[in-house]
């Protein structure tokens, strides 16, 4: 397989963006990525688009063709990839394979979701499609509900507390203050989280990621070609993915995302490093408990110690491992199809030293972790500084 690099990144503002439609957002991100890569556009040979529920949310399918059209990239092949909230990472991974296989040398990835055109109830129902419609959703399950079932077991088995969960949200809000693209750029306190409205016990509103509009794009290039083209590339040293049962109840353990553990172990093997080498990680904090499990399943902390580590500040900027410097899904926002691509954008900025007020010093390796549904899909990528 050929080696692959990220040579350009871009994103739109994340938030409740009533002035922009899906086309506007994806063009903002795409144009920015092409400009960042110092390309004309004509060098791009293929496009992979990640979106989860555009059909349900705005009645628009065929998103990859829409993106290629809007960005003026026709007639290159354009393919949509879907894996619930992991759609963006899956699109990125398919673009990676397209170059690693030798089929192309320059490929663009776009992730997008336009969620606030729909009512909150419609958006929540559309997101429910990531679970098992017949055996979870029909029984009255919601996504906060499924993660709450995991949180309850984590609290029972490891003594994790609601304060520990809240600390993940507080930290991500603090990070988002320094990210001009983020949806919520304001600090909150643990008490704010604990006193926010209950959604599915023990999870409250401020434990949950919001509904967001946004897009992100990256340009991938064959590494040898990238080295001739630019000094501003980062290398993709691992791309791994795993699957698990669609329904949460079919899993042996509710206190881990097994697909994350398997994908992470494969990714560390590909990169030839262990988790202690990772300086910055964008992890899938769709709910606070998801971040606590992620920092354990990715090997940053022992199983059961992720909550305490979060409360102790070990995942803050300047801590043992900086987690979700962008603000994560919680505070940067979670336009589902864009999230996995945005994680790559943030890690690329960190590795290039362009993360502004949230920059980690001397970071060599960065990791992204994107989960679909309650853990039926998990994708892990590791990027390395030039």
């Amino acid at each position: 397989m050929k080696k692959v690099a990220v040579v350009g990144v871009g994103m739109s503002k994340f938030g409740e963006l009533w002035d922009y439609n899906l086309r506007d957002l994806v063009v903002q991100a795409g144009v920015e990525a092409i400009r960042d890569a110092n390309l004309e556009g004509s060098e791009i040979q293929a496009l992979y688009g990640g979106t989860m529920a555009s059909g349900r949310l705005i009645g628009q399918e065929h998103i990859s063709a829409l993106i290629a059209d809007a960005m003026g990239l026709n007639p290159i092949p354009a393919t949509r990839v879907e894996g619930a909230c992991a759609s963006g990472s899956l699109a990125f991974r398919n673009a990676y394979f397209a170059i690693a296989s030798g089929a192309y040398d320059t490929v663009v990835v776009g992730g997008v979701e336009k969620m606030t055109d729909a009512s909150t109830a419609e958006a929540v129902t559309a997101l429910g499609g990531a679970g098992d419609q017949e055996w979870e959703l029909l029984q009255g399950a919601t996504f906060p509900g499924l993660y709450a079932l995991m949180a309850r077991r984590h609290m029972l088995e490891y003594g994790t507390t609601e304060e520990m969960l809240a600390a993940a949200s507080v930290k991500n809000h603090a990070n988002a203050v320094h990210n001009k693209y983020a949806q919520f750029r304001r600090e909150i306190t643990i008490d704010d989280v604990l006193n926010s409205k209950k959604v599915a016990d023990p999870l409250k509103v401020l434990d949950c990621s919001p509904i967001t509009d946004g897009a992100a794009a990256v340009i991938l290039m064959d590494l040898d070609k990238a080295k001739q083209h630019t000094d501003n590339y980062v290398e993709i040293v691992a791309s791994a993915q795993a699957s698990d049962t669609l329904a949460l109840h079919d899993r042996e353990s509710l206190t881990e995302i097994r697909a994350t553990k398997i994908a992470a172990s494969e990714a560390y093997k590909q990169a030839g490093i262990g988790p202690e080498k990772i300086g910055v990680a964008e992890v899938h904090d769709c709910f606070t408990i998801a971040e606590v499990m992620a920092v354990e399943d990715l090997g940053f902390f022992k199983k059961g110690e992720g909550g305490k580590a979060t409360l102790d500040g070990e995942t803050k900027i300047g801590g043992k491992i900086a987690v979700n410097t962008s603000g994560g899904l919680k505070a940067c926002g979670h336009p589902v199809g864009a999230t996995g691509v945005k994680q790559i954008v943030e890690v690329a900025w960190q590795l290039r030293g362009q993360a502004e007020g949230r920059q980690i010093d001397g970071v060599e390796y960065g990791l992204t972790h994107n989960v679909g549904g309650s853990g039926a899909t998990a994708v892990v990528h590791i990027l390395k500084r030039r």
Partner: protein
Amino acid sequence: MKPGLPLLWRRTKERYNLIGSKCESCGTHYMPGRAVCPKCRRKGKLVEHKFSGKGRIYSYTVVRVAPEGYEYFVPYVLAIINLDEGAKITGQIVDADPDKIEVGQKVEMVFRKIHEDNPEGLITYGFKFKLAD
């Protein structure tokens, strides 16, 4: 999603009578039933199995923000039940004070209305659970 008639009709056996499957090769129970045993794959031999409907609460939450069609029941207890035969399944716990639910409590299946807001004008029935004595 609001389930239409075909979805509700084709799974009545499972949904009304808690009929799943058991793999005769490895002894694992599945609810809902599976066509392929993930443990044995081609060597698996799956037969129908009627579950007793008895089990214990493995985890639970109180859903306070409901999906479309379930608003009427809020707040309701949603749980993962570890059935006595070994399979786990998601269902609501009814007729109980949400504050008195605990992991490990014994439950049994009951037949209840799931919701009544669907495009065919149907009332959806299925299983829920109640605390056992």
